[in-house]
């Protein structure tokens, strides 16, 4: 049995979890250190602070990866086989419909969660120094999420897919100078066809997921390097004075001692790089505010994971992902709508293609990326950043209203049709 214990020890490399040392080592001597410190602040674990939206988004991405790989086993990315495979998944493949439902609903949920996560980060002022660049990485991840969802939309090769992508890519072609060429590059032809389906497939299963994984790694790593989650606003306190930042590893035994920083000390490379001591001692009050990541953070995250997976599974049991008749380039459904998260843009496009298709989205993306660099106000307290909050709230509400109008209040010919009015098609 000794050799089994040795093998186990070579994997876990830590003391038993019943000891505080073991709990620390589980994180400290492990890949988890890239995500968590050994101890985390209690209030940062509270659900009402972060709603675990970042983790939930990540878990949704994991669901999408696993269900996506499963679906790839039955999908051929060329028409009409693509559509036939959808029918196979729906009616012939064991659990095919369920997996496709999970993939579709998790994709929608990811768009929602990544947006809500961005709102949470904004309203808590967590994009401010030193987290500016991580906000930019987050905006990139939002755009990649939309890109993934958009490219996935074409793959079923049904009427919904064909016309949503026709409208969506034509919106992009209004970009000055390069719009038309970019559209042809994306579609691999003049119109949505075989080449477009293959290119969207490559983007959907290889290019965009790779970029998301890469940026997610950077995003998580930056969260750690920027000092973990920002402190909740209700726990904000004045900046630490220089006198309190002290050098010296915490003693193995409590109580922790505050050791004055010594000018004679030789600092390690990491301390020079980060500009502060690695072992920044904490006061006993601060120490009381922290708990071990294992089990407190780990268990909460596991609960979030289970809740996310269970919710998506439950939705997938009761609601089927839409699948219309096979794509028919000759017949445009009336109305033809883009994916719901682009319906706000489509509503604007119905008034002006250049404004809705190019100017507004370009301005929105640039403004989102520049937020941490434009907003120089260091305060994170809502009371002291009313303008920023008003502007961002206007952006959020305007987007939501436009999406609701595009989704529920537009009927045949994009006419204003409230959802409670039934429209009879006009004979041609």
């Amino acid at each position, binding site marked *: 049995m000794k050799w089994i214990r040795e093998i186990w020890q070579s994997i876990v490399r830590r003391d038993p979890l019943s000891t505080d040392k073991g709990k620390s080592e589980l994180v400290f001597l492990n890949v988890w250190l890239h995500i968590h410190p050994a101890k985390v602040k209690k209030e940062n674990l509270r659900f009402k602070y972060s709603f675990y939206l970042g983790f939930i988004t990540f878990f949704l991405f994991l669901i999408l990866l696993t269900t996506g790989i499963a679906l790839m086993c039955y999908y051929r990315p060329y028409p009409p086989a693509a559509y036939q495979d959808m029918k196979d998944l729906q009616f012939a493949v064991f659990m095919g419909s369920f997996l496709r439902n999970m993939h579709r609903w998790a994709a929608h949920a990811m768009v929602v969660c990544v947006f809500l996560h961005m709102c949470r980060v904004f309203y808590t002022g967590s994009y401010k120094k030193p987290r500016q660049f991580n906000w930019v990485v987050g905006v990139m991840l939002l755009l990649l999420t939309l890109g993934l969802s958009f490219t996935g939309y074409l793959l079923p090769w049904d009427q919904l897919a064909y*016309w949503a992508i*026709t*409208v969506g890519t*034509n*919106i992009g072609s209004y970009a000055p100078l390069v719009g038309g060429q970019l559209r*042809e*590059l994306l579609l*691999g*032809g*003049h*119109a949505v*066809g*075989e*080449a477009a389906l293959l290119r969207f497939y490559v983007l959907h299963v290889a290019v965009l997921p790779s970029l998301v994984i890469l940026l997610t790694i950077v995003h998580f790593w930056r969260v750690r390097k920027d000092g973990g989650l920002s402190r909740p606003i209700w726990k904000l306190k004045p900046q630490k004075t220089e006198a309190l930042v002290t050098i010296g590893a915490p003693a193995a035994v409590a109580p922790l001692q505050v050791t004055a920083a010594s000018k004679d000390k030789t600092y390690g490379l990491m301390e020079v790089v980060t500009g502060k001591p690695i072992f920044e001692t904490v006061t006993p009050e601060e120490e009381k505010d922290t708990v071990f990541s294992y089990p407190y953070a780990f268990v909460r995250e596991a609960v979030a994971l289970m809740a996310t997976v269970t919710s998506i599974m439950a939705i997938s049991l009761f609601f089927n992902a839409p699948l219309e008749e096979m794509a*028919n*380039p*000759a*017949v*445009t*459904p*009336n*109305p*033809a709508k883009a994916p719901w998260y682009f319906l706000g843009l*489509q509503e604007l*496009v*119905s*008034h*002006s*293609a250049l404004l809705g298709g190019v100017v507004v989205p370009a301005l929105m993306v640039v403004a989102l990326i520049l937020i941490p660099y434009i907003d120089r106000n260091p305060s994170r307290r809502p009371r002291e950043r009313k303008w920023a909050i008003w502007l961002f709230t206007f952006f959020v509400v305007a987007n939501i209203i436009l999406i609701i109008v595009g989704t529920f209040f537009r009927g*045949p*010919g*994009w*006419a204003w049709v409230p959802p409670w009015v039934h429209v009879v098609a*006009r004979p*041609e």
Partner: protein
Amino acid sequence: MAALCSAVGVSLGAVVRFLVPSVFYGPPQSFKIGNPGDFPYGPPTFLADEKIFVFRDRERGFAVASAVCTHLGCTVAYFQNDRDFHCPCHGSVFSPTGAVLHGPAPRPLNWFEITLTRDGQLRVDKDKTVPPTYRLMV
């Protein structure tokens, strides 16, 4: 550094060029649509695969209008009662001559050249646009 930048630039250029198809395998832009006798007088004939409307008028002859909305590429429908074209996507309405009557479409519908081939068939060339007054008398 300059060498590295040049190498990266050239490589990126090559990747973009690789992604631009040298051959488009889409349907041909110039094609025969049949004999003149195949097309009735009156309401236009809609050819779904080619996305065109073929008009035939006793006095004025043949004309071909594009069925692709100039706004976002949806296929327009022809309404015989009002004699106008309606786009289902964003509600653009085009007059019988293809002019924009209503909606966000930025320009009129295209009209294509239609000619008679030596074997007596009608040929449409979507690469050649013509004014709405263009007619082929047969």
